[in-house]
């Protein structure tokens, strides 16, 4: 089986006020390439920590995190940044758009520090904005967009580098039910069209019901993995 993501006995411990908190505790997980996995669990169960480890935003205290053949624990800080840029797209619960940038400029953000010609970056950004149905709003500031539209822009930003893995942390968490459904439909469409692997977290049981694969976390441990 070609696993895109593999977690092997992964533990992540945080120190807080002199206390050791095990956000993840010996987690094993394998995610197939091109699959859509939803990680569910209560708040504080370790969902976001797991996503951070898979996306190379954080390092495991123990165990190994393998993504697309890379042992993330062995990558340098720069190599991890390159890994995120080339292979991973992130979608956040609260969109995390730069308020003074237009939708187009926000989508171009991953290109800013690299020597990508502006015209080329904008062409690519407009393409993905079109894919998420936001082309007409390309020159609007985030403040002029609805929550659903902002999340679409954030999804476009996550896709602009053509990642093979999309990590979405509660992408519908700040949206009303109807808007949330539309965002999920969009993600579903992109999943079909691009064939990329999606791992998303949610505490919404309805999302878990529709998901092809579900991982349930409790107190940092995987208690169920259904496909």
């Amino acid at each position, binding site marked *: 089986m070609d696993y895109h993501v593999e977690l092997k006995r992964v533990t992540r411990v945080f120190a807080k006020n002199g206390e050791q908190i095990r956000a993840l505790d010996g987690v094993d997980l394998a995610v197939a390439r091109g699959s859509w996995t939803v990680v569910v669990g209560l708040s504080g169960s370790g969902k976001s*920590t797991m996503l951070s480890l898979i996306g190379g*935003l954080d390092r495991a205290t123990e165990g190994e995190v393998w993504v697309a053949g890379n042992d993330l624990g062995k990558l340098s800080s*720069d190599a991890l940044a390159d890994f*995120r*840029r080339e292979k991973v797209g992130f979608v*956040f619960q609260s969109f*995390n758009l730069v308020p003074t940038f237009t939708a187009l400029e926000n989508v171009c*953000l991953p290109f*800013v*520090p690299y020597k990508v010609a502006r015209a080329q970056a904008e062409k690519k950004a407009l393409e993905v904005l079109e894919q998420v149905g936001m082309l007409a709003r390309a020159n609007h500031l985030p403040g002029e967009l609805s929550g659903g539209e902002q999340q679409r822009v954030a999804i476009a930003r996550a896709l602009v580098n053509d990642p093979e893995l999309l990590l979405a942390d509660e992408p519908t968490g700040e949206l009303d039910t109807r808007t949330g459904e539309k965002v999920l439909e969009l993600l579903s469409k992109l999943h079909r069209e691009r064939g990329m692997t999606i791992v998303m977290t949610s505490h919404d049981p309805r999302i878990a019901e529709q998901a092809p694969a579900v991982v349930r976390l409790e107190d940092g441990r995987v208690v169920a993995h259904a496909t």
Partner: protein
Amino acid sequence: MLQYALKELTRRKSRSLLVIFGIVICTALLASALCISQAMRNAASQPFQSANADIIIQRELAECPFALVKHAGKLGAIPEESIQQIRELPGVDMAAGVLELWVTSGPDETDRAVVTGVDPDYQHKLGPTKQGEDCCTLTDHEIGGRYLYVTDDHTCLVEEPYAKKHGLKLGSTLLLGGEEFTVVGTLRAAEGARIAAGEIYVTLRDAQAMLGEGEVVNAVLVRAENQKAAAEIEKKVREIVKVDTDQGERLALTTDSNVMSSVAGVAILAQSANRWMAGLVVLVVFLLVVKSSLSSVSERMREIGTMKALGWRDRHVARLLALESGLVGLIGGLIGTGAGYGAALGYTSSTTLRLPALLNSYPACAKTPPPLDMQFSLAGCGPLVVGAFLVALSIGVLSGYLAARRAGKLPPAEALRRV
């Protein structure tokens, strides 16, 4: 990235303006303090450069009553033989004596002129008639005007304003202390204070004859080989030129470094306080800018985390923050140095410093204005302004660096989690 940095500065307009304002104030203070210091140094050194001298030696006495011919102001006689002893001191490049007199001129004894006796051997290179653009040029050279000769008897050079006032020209005669002198040249002097300048110049011999005190001078101008030598010469001169302190006499040794304290004591104090204050303000502003930059990092955790999640390397984030602070320093520095230079210009053009009267004693009834106004000049201020600008830029860059280091080290997951 520059566009990003500029937008970020615009987004946090109040903070950016406050930081820029702080940098403007500190840079302006620094630039103005440095430039005013420089202008004062220039003002103090200008009369010495004009005379090509480093040290002026004079005996200061209580002023004596007016006579047909008398020592100018409070000056006292110094034996001419002292000059030769001074010339023989190590480190002395050259030394010349002048005899500055107040003399009745014309048939009316109430007309008085400042007559300076100069040594014809040194008149071109040292003292109040020194030839050159920073001091004196002959206006009638083309029609036969000349400097004084050693062999001259009862000849004189007149300064241009005096010549114009009295209608004197080449070949004219005038009465000095009851004796007739012939004009052999007209001198045009550069603007600014001049040491031992007179309205009329005669040979030292003629001046001594007019005064009738023998071979004496009342000011010795010394050119030292270098600054270090000047300090040594000052010490030795005190052994050569004796004064009777019991009679209230004083040996006045004036150099460009001590002339300022006598003419601008308060100004120097203010200037010194200004420099200290500028230094203190630089420190305070630096700390404020650092604090502001670090706060900016704390407030932008989500943004920094997002940038890193999107593939920005640590150094890219650091570069962005450094660029933002650098821009703040650049803008503040440019405005601040401009304001500081303007303040220095305003101060120097509205302040007048005058050479101590001992260095150039004109009687109250002088017919021409005494050349006592010291010329403020901002020459040499350019590098200081650039220095102040670099300080402002450094404040920006250094605070940016500290903020950038903090942001760079921030693990992306932690940055996103802290929101």
